[in-house]
């Protein structure tokens, strides 16, 4: 998924502690956010991998509940457009 870069610290937490909690809670193989933004954008890729799609969706539900309580500067939004890169 593509998310605004300001959400990365909310999802990962300090030293990745929140991400670790989510991985253990939903038995995920992977939950990472790419360290850099997608080209020409302020969005970063959130990668979640699991053998169970239901657990991925449940994890996403919790993530979106957390990040919807925070806002970011609207002027800073630059959506990733795949046409500009390839």
């Amino acid at each position: 998924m593509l998310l605004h870069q300001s959400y990365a610290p909310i999802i990962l937490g300090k030293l990745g502690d929140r991400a670790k909690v989510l991985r253990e809670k939903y038995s995920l193989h992977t939950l990472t956010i790419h360290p850099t933004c997608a080209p020409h954008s302020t969005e970063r890729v959130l990668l979640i991998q699991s053998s169970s799609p239901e657990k991925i969706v449940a994890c996403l539900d919790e993530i979106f509940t957390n990040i919807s309580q925070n806002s970011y500067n609207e002027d800073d939004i630059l959506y990733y457009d795949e046409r500009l890169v390839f």
Partner: protein
Amino acid sequence: MAAPNRFQTRVSILAEKPSLTNEEIRLNSLLEQAQIYLNKVNHLQRVTKDHYLLQQSKTDAWSSHMYQKIDDLYKLCLNDLNQSCEQLKIFQRLMDSILSNEYEHNLDVNKLLAIAQEIRILKCLTYQLDLSKVKIDRNIKSGKCFESDEYDMSINDNNDHRNQNKATEGHSSANVICRILVHKDVFDEIKNLPLFQENVQITSDEIDETTPERVLIINSKYENKRIRYKDHFIFVLIDFRIVFLCRSKAFRSY
């Protein structure tokens, strides 16, 4: 310093003899020369000492003059700084009285003129306030202009902050949009599904075939008071999970 008397006595004794030997003449001559050189050394010593004393007195005079000058400059700077400080305090008291007066929130022409006059005085001072470091603690909200050239200004109070926070909260929950990055192959397999047609938008219909990925945006057209956007796209994802499960190979390779 050599004693001249011993040499003078010796010379006078030798001069009293009627006939002198060659050695005595030579000795006499040497003694005279020694006397001359001694006098010269003494003279140079006196001259050097006088010169040193003169230089020393000049240096002392110069240093006390410098001390006095520095002292005067210090007093002048201190005076100017005190004056600037006093003027700033007057300006601060004026601004406090104008802006803090709870019965008078309006700035009329007279008050603005008073402020302008104080600012003019501040600009004439030797030491002036560094405006780049000045911070105004309150928000002043401009009001309407009157026909008689009076300008009505009022102070923004805390109520506006509460309203601003509410606006921010409302804005944040609408900001979160579900954007999924998928491989082109996955996109090609699901783009014709009714589920996709109803719930998903893409960046553009005109995308080069060589572009290996697509951005899918879960739309918010079903958002209403009973279903929030977040719940809506979670439902969509739940429906899509079956589709994605079938296409897991494409995901792994991506």
